[in-house]
């Protein structure tokens, strides 16, 4: 090989060879002007110094012997421009040529009349090709379709064995020396980086050089047997020598995992298989319900490359029905009563709902609210017992009561099931009546809810104790702490707060104290309920319910900060005017929007609409008035109805009559799009259970679905 010999190709079709060893200034050696158009590529034979091949835009390839003035032979591709020519490294006589129409041709240098074989490699121009330095059968091609393909030429038909998708059209491909599967590429547009790919991992380059500021025009490995140095030239007028250890590795930035919570609390987790099945005993956990497994693993058995065996697995963890899932939210939203009944009933109802869902704190909050804001006269004492049972469990004299009450109070099946599962607590339950509290309180700590202490006073003094017990032996002592707090700080506060009392007396004259609230004195204390007796004593002092507003406000704020905006909004709606002034408008609006958004995420459209209707914030109220227009046409004369009444202006008939009961339909109206008859939803549904014809007798076969 001659180190001084250089060949260049020019856009005017001239192929020039230069001898750098010449002593004179003019190093030019030979000049061939046989091509008519741009010469895209020149290539020396790997072993024959004097043999030079050129490929041109005019569609011809020419072989030159540098010892002669003219070309030795001319090859006609019989097609469009030649983009690249490459001598095979192993086959002495063979070269490959790539074309703008996407074809690759293989030629025997001795037979200029006809190509040996041809195949279509790319969709669009094939800009480059490179023979594998070791494996004689492999040819890599790159095209405008952004792909790099590796072909096995040993078989009779060229077979695509690897395909790498890059992000821009491929201008150059170069196999990396000594690394069988590595190939370097650069692009001619948009992308200025040089990538080195492992062809077996076609999606992420194994190395990336980002130095160039403009398009990279050429890349070459510095030495035939040195895989660590790469030279590149660019339109930014720089020539870089890249050393491999400087390369950035995009794989480092690729996250191997995906994780996401679903709406209902299910959790999807995707990760590399190698990561999650490292201990290879993929035994299903006993007792779990398995999803069908879609298993389409593709692993190349010959892999040694560390990153390659990385198909990933996706698991979906479904939540335990009782705790993690969001079912409680949906049930609560559906069952809560927010308006239309006296306050006491609403509170009781909601307390029962919360209780039924094991949300004792919330239940207790509702009960408190009832006690605070309304008379107890209307409520049966058993009901009260039921909802108050918890708060009183720690009183020794109530033990007998508890024993009776628990089967009733915890009546729901799921709850019993669970306590059976927890054999430890069950034993305790059986043990003695005094430790029964443990079990009860266990329920309390499991919900994320606030202890009732928060409602009635500061818990700060005992915060640490509370927490520690929660951690270790959660239950036995906590009750001792929480109950005194329920009882005493509150009383303390009241007694020691004369200014508040003054304030209250002022208020007593205000018209705001409704009759309802005045009646609270008539509270009949239920025997030995500590909490109620407190309330009782309070009411004897004739405290108006306003007195509690700051506490209630704090309760709501607390629920909101805990992420339970449902309770905050529900209480807000139920209490209405009583509490609204205490909380600033912006916060209320924030709660409403959050809750409504949440309801809509759970597709609880009716409830979200009810909340919107009941809200007092102007910004919320107008939510369901936006862009809703209903155009009605008369069912008789098909004229648009005016919005005055139910009588059509033109035909003087009632337009929206129920075909079944012949009354005007106000509210939900369902009608057939075919015959325009319809009526009350209930009536029509009932009718169509027995008949398939239109109830109006028009003979139309209506389909209400």
């Amino acid at each position, binding site marked *: 090989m001659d180190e001084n010999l250089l060949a260049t190709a020019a856009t005017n079709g001239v192929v020039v060879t230069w001898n750098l060893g010449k002593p004179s200034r003019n190093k030019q050696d030979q000049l061939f002007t046989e091509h008519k158009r741009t010469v895209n590529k020149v290539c020396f034979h790997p072993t024959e110094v004097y043999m030079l091949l050129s490929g041109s835009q005019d569609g011809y390839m020419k072989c030159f012997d540098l010892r002669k003035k003219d070309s030795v032979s001319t090859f006609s591709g019989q097609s469009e421009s030649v983009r690249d020519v490459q001598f095979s490294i192993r086959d002495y006589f063979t070269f490959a040529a790539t074309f703008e129409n996407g074809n690759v041709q293989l030629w025997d240098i001795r037979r200029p009349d006809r190509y040996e074989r041809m195949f279509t490699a790319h969709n669009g121009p094939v800009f480059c090709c490179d023979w594998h330095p070791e494996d004689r059968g492999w040819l890599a091609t790159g095209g405008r379709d952004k792909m790099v393909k590796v072909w096995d030429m040993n078989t009779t038909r060229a077979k695509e064995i690897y395909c790498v998708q890059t992000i821009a059209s491929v201008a150059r491909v170069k196999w990396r020396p000594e690394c069988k599967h590595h190939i370097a590429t650069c692009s001619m547009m948009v992308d200025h980086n040089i990538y080195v790919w492992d062809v077996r991992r076609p999606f992420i380059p194994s190395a990336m050089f980002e130095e160039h500021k403009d398009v990279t025009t050429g890349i070459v490995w510095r030495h035939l047997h040195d895989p660590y140095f790469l030279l590149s030239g660019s339109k930014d007028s720089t020539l870089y020598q890249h050393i491999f250890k400087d390369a950035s590795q995009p794989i480092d930035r*690729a996250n191997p995992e995906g994780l996401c919570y679903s709406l209902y609390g299910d959790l999807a987790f995707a990760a590399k298989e190698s990561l999650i099945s490292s201990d290879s005993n993929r035994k299903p956990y006993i007792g779990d319900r398995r999803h069908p497994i879609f298993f389409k693993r593709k692993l190349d058995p010959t892999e040694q490359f560390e990153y390659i065996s990385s198909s990933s697995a996706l698991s979906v963890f479904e939540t335990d029905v009782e705790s993690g899932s969001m079912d409680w939210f949906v049930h609560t939203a559906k069952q809560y009563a927010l308006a239309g009944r006296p306050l006491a009933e609403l509170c009781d109802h909601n307390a029962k709902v919360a209780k039924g869902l094991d949300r004792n704190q919330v239940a207790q909050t509702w009960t408190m609210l009832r006690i605070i804001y309304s008379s107890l006269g209307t409520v049966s004492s058993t009901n009260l017992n039921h909802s108050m049972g918890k708060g009183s469990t720690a009183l020794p004299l109530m033990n007998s009561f508890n024993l009776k009450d628990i089967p009733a109070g915890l009546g729901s099946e799921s709850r019993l099931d669970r306590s059976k599962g927890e054999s430890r607590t069950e034993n305790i339950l059986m043990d003695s009546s005094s430790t029964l509290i443990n079990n009860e309180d266990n329920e309390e700590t499991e919900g994320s809810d606030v202890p009732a202490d928060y409602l009635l006073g500061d818990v700060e003094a005992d915060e640490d104790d509370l927490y520690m017990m929660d951690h270790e032996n959660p239950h036995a002592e906590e009750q001792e702490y929480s109950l005194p707090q329920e009882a005493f700080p509150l009383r303390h506060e009241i007694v020691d707060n004369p200014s508040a009392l003054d304030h209250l007396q002022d208020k007593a004259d205000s018209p705001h104290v409704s009759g309802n609230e005045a009646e609270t004195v008539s509270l009949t204390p239920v025997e030995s309920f500590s909490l109620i007796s407190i309330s009782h004593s309070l009411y004897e002092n004739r405290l108006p319910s306003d007195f509690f507003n700051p506490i209630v406000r704090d309760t709501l704020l607390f629920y909101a900060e805990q992420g339970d905006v449902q309770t905050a909004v529900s209480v807000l709606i139920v209490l209405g005017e009583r509490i609204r002034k205490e909380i600033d408008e912006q916060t209320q609006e924030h709660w409403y929007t959050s809750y409504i958004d949440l309801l809509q995420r759970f597709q609880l459209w009716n409830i979200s609409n009810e909340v919107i209707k009941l809200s007092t914030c102007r910004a919320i109220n107008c939510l369901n008035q936006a862009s809703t227009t209903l155009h009605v046409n008369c069912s008789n004369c098909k004229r648009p109805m005016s919005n005055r009444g139910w009588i059509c202006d033109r035909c003087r008939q009632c337009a929206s009559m129920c075909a079944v009961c012949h009354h005007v339909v106000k509210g939900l109206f369902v009608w057939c799009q075919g015959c325009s008859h319809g009526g009350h939803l209930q009536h029509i549904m009932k009718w169509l259970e027995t008949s398939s014809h239109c109830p109006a007798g028009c003979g139309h076969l209506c389909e209400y679905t």
Partner: protein
Amino acid sequence: MATCSSDQSVKVWDKSENGDWHCTASWKTHSGSVWRVTWAHPEFGQVLASCSFDRTAAVWEEIVGESNDKLRGQSHWVKRTTLVDSRTSVTDVKFAPKHMGLMLATCSADGVVRIYEAPDVMNLSQWSLQHEISCKLSCSCISWNPSSSRAHSPMIAVGSDDNSPNILAKVQIYEYNENTRKYAKAEALMTVTDPVHDIAFAPNLGRSFHILAVATKDVRIFTLKPLRKELTSSGGLTKFEIHIVAQFDNHNSQVWRVSWNITGTVLASSGDDGCVRLWKANYMDNWKCTGILKGNGSPVNGSSQQGIFNASLGSANTSLQNSLNGSSASRKQS
């Protein structure tokens, strides 16, 4: 559920009535690895956004009703737009909270956060670049503050996976300023100096403060309490009182992903140990591990038994050939 993979494709999975997951769409989205996929609020239709190594982000919409018999059961997703402004790999894409309209933010490896808006929500093919924020550090993840309160101005947190040995804060928080109509840096979490791979604001749900989870070499949870406006210089940026409320290195390795449940009460994190760990606060705001889930469904010995989850339900193995990420996002109910 939508998943994306380094194999350049996105798949959409639907859960049938009986609880089975079916892949209803799978298509090639980019000419590079897809890093993230995310759902828009269902109010805007069935809309996905994806971002990729190929320097683009794309918005996709599901077309219903025009299916012919051959493709029955396969939903049809069409590309509505390609966002090509980035000069480097786009590492994250997130839709803004619904009340801000149809907006999305992307961040890229060269440290630029871009915020796009579709002025007409019915026309998903028109997105205009509203803001470009230069973070000076290679960005890896981004999260919108979901609060819908008028008291909280729009805010995004950006995490960086820059691993050069400098001590710059890897989590920066940008807030929209009504007066200048620009995003400006409000805070930087100086204590986070290791590469950050994921970041997530908890759903706000009426809280007055914000909770931010950060996945770095450990799991960290921060609270950001806005100080009252009066105290800050008028019209300026909100100042925050930032507390780190939890920090867990139980994964003993790189933490890759964090995800909140819908109420922002449970945080799930996943790390190189192949486990998902669940974190929950008690009412005293003390965060504790409430469950460990192993990716292969086997129970973890010694995990606390008050776990929220039944250990595992099946694994659905997708053929993400050579994939290295399977970022998933839940399809919201519409």
